[in-house]
């Protein structure tokens, strides 16, 4: 059953000759105003619609002795009262009753534009379609068969290129002709599903004869079922109370009838598209489809994702680590020598601060700039190519395969660069408890700072298997993160889930400027951090490692470190310097390197810092140290953000304690397992 076999009061406007009114309508940015300006030139008037803040444009267009009063209606997506523009447009169509409506659609995005056409066909006014931007559509490989489109719509369709004034006159010819020859005009109108036919008829019966005469009753009935607020308010005022109560009750029972009405329109659009539009598949689309068969596969995609991480580390180690080692052993050593000679006559505390604190502290951190730069570059390329979006998709698919997924996973996973945006990303979660629990787990995301420290130490700890060890540690981290996401889902969401639609961008060749900017911004951010937070922390570490002046092993810092040695011994960390370096990572993860640099005092003769540290540890304890480094408590910036987002020190304490328990447990387990294997 069609709902509009005989629209409105059954009488389209009477055919006119000599003078007629026409309305130009379309979605925003389809070129409607360009066409209006071309047709009316200086014969136009711009003002506001009566009582509205929406601009009104009217003009006169003359063609073959016919004078057309043209109204350029505001851009609108539909005829539902979602905005003032939409209300103005439909009120004019219904109350103003133009002789003909000229709908302008964008040929390059017909699916979006035809929804308005579907709605226009529920009104009695005759309709002509202007297919604009057909040239743009062709450039994108979209070919619209205009005669087929016209036949499937049952409407006159004229191809137009408004920017070149092509087809505009022909479009108005058709509009004028249609307005004068309405007999036989029989458009193909969309229908709603048969099961809603009786409901529509019942609504129509309830409002029969009681709505303002300008409004077609079947259109009003449809809008009531769609839940249009303005039409509902109008009908409520028009109906007697008991009739309104019955109607309201029926509408509440069919609150989601909109789904069938919209569904019917989109099914109609789908049929039109299949009949009249073909898309030539571009190379980029085909390549994306082929690559995504693997990249988005639940298992294959996960393997590819883990392989990508392995590749990131391998490239970093192959290119950046040798440069970092050279900087550490040659440049730092030379700076050390120069500083020592320049400050030979200076107070010992000053030369100690400069060499021990600044050069060995902050200077060491700068030696892993090459690691950071390469790391950011590879990540930036993966992002710009379009791969990282697949990463989030694949991790979710993997968890879905196990029947597990949650809204908390998305902000956590996407916040790979830094834990601070991972905490901020939790804002998308409406439920407060769920949001806070997600924030609690955000520090489990392996940020680039942690990964950079990992990349700095791993080649020295495990020279032959650096890439494999790094890859395994990150995989372990991601598994823990996934497990945490499952836990949050069970505890906070009670198994409830949310859903996302995501556009996976086409793969494309990375833009050097985009990648360069990404590397630059992240590197500058790191340098700023090194010049502020790490500098201050390094000076503090140096001071604590010097006072009260009886040597490093009798210093205040040594006292603190030795107090924690029992904890460290459970992971094979008998050297208090390793424990202190871990604690220093609270201020910034890179501080671990700065602190180790100060406490081990690397120089050209003693080898690189990482090599010195490696000598102090057994393989099992090296592995345990890396695990603890990766999972250690959140840094100061993250803690500050958690405090800001939760407004509570309780959640901050919980986050710190949770990570502490996880990292210590993991460290002990890995150490014991390493001992058992070796």
């Amino acid at each position, binding site marked *: 059953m069609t709902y509009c076999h005989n629209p409105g009061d059954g009488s389209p406007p009477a055919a006119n000759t000599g003078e007629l009114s026409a309305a130009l309508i379309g979605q925003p940015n389809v070129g409607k105003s360009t066409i209006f300006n071309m047709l009316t030139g200086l014969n136009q008037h711009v003002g506001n619609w009566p009582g509205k803040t929406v601009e009104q444009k009217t003009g006169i267009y003359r063609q073959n002795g016919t004078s057309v009063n043209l109204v350029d209606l505001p851009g609108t997506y539909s005829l539902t009262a979602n905005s003032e523009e939409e209300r103005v447009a439909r009120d004019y169509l219904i109350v103003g009753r133009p002789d003909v409506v000229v709908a302008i659609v964008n040929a390059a995005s017909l699916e979006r534009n035809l929804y308005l056409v579907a709605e226009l066909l529920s009104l009695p006014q005759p309709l002509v379609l202007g297919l604009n931007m057909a040239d743009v559509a062709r450039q994108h490989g979209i070919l619209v068969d205009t005669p087929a489109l016209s036949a499937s719509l049952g409407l006159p369709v004229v191809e137009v290129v408004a920017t070149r004034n092509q087809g505009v006159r022909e479009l108005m010819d058709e509009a004028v002709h249609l307005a004068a020859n309405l007999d036989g005009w029989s458009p193909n109108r969309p229908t709603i599903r048969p099961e809603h036919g009786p409901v529509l008829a019942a609504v129509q019966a309830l409002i029969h004869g009681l709505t303002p005469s300008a409004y077609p009753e079947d259109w009003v009935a449809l809008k009531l079922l769609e839940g249009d607020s303005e039409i509902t308010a109008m009908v409520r005022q028009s109906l007697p109370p008991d009739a309104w109560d019955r109607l309201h009750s029926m509408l509440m029972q069919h609150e989601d009838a909109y789904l069938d009405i919209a569904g019917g329109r989109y099914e109609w659009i789908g049929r039109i598209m299949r009949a009249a539009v073909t898309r030539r598949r571009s190379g980029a689309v085909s390549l994306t489809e082929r690559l995504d068969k693997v990249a988005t596969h639940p298992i294959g995609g996960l393997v590819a994702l883990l392989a990508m991480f392995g590749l990131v580390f391998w490239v970093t180690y192959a290119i950046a680590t040798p440069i970092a080692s050279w900087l550490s052993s040659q440049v730092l050593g030379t700076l050390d020598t120069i500083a020592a000679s320049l400050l030979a006559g200076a107070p010992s505390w000053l030369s100690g601060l400069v060499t021990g604190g600044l050069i060995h502290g902050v200077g060491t951190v700068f030696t892993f700039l090459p690691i950071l730069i390469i790391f950011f570059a590879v990540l930036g390329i993966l992002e710009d190519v379009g791969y990282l979006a697949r990463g989030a998709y694949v991790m979710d698919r993997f968890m879905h395969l196990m029947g597990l997924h949650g809204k908390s996973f998305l902000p956590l996973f996407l916040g790979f660069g830094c834990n601070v945006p991972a905490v901020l990303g939790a804002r*998308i979660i409406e439920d407060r408890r769920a949001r806070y629990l997600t924030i609690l787990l955000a520090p489990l995301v392996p940020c680039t700072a942690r990964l950079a420290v990992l990349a700095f130490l791993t080649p020295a700890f495990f020279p032959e298997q650096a890439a494999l060890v790094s890859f395994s540690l990150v995989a372990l981290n991601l598994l823990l993160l996934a497990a945490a996401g499952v836990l949050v889902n069970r505890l906070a969401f009670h198994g409830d889930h*949310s*859903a*996302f*639609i995501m556009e996976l961008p086409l793969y494309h060749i990375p833009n050097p400027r985009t990648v360069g900017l990404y590397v630059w911004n992240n590197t500058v951010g790191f340098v700023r951090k090194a010049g502020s937070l790490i500098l201050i922390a390094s000076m503090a570490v140096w001071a604590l490692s010097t006072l009260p002046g009886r040597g490093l092993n009798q210093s205040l810092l040594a006292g603190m470190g030795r107090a924690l040695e029992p904890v460290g011994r459970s992971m094979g960390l008998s050297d208090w310097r390793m424990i202190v370096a871990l604690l220093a990572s609270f201020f910034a993860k890179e501080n671990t390197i700065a602190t180790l640099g100060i406490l081990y005092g690397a120089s050209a003769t003693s080898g690189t810092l990482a090599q010195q540290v490696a000598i102090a540890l057994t393989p099992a304890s090296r592995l345990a140290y890396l695990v603890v480094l990766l999972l250690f408590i959140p840094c100061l910036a993250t803690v500050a953000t958690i405090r800001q987002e939760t407004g509570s020190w309780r959640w901050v304490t919980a986050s710190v304690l949770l990570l502490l328990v996880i990292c210590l447990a993991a460290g002990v387990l890995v150490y014991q397992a390493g001992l058992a294997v070796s």
Partner: protein
Amino acid sequence: MNHSGNLVTGLLQVLDEGGIHSIAEIARRLGAGEGLIVAIAEELQRRGLLTPLNDNCGTGCRGCAMSGACAAPGQASSGFGMMALTAKGRRWAQNRFVDTMGN
């Protein structure tokens, strides 16, 4: 996918499964073009059943909660981006699914 409703209800049913769904995946399951799925999603967004997650992309990253978490940080999104099912969308999807299963 054998969905017993129309494309709109079919889209909601896919989303009711939870998790992340790509436009390509939804189009494949519903037997429709990707452009049509995007059009439906945008209409559902106008009706409050979906909400965009990166609607600040037109002005760059400032003020966006996802800015550091985005697949393309520092760039304004030129396309669809990402949308989430709202509470209203979830309710409608589940009501319709129950109706379908009941029938």
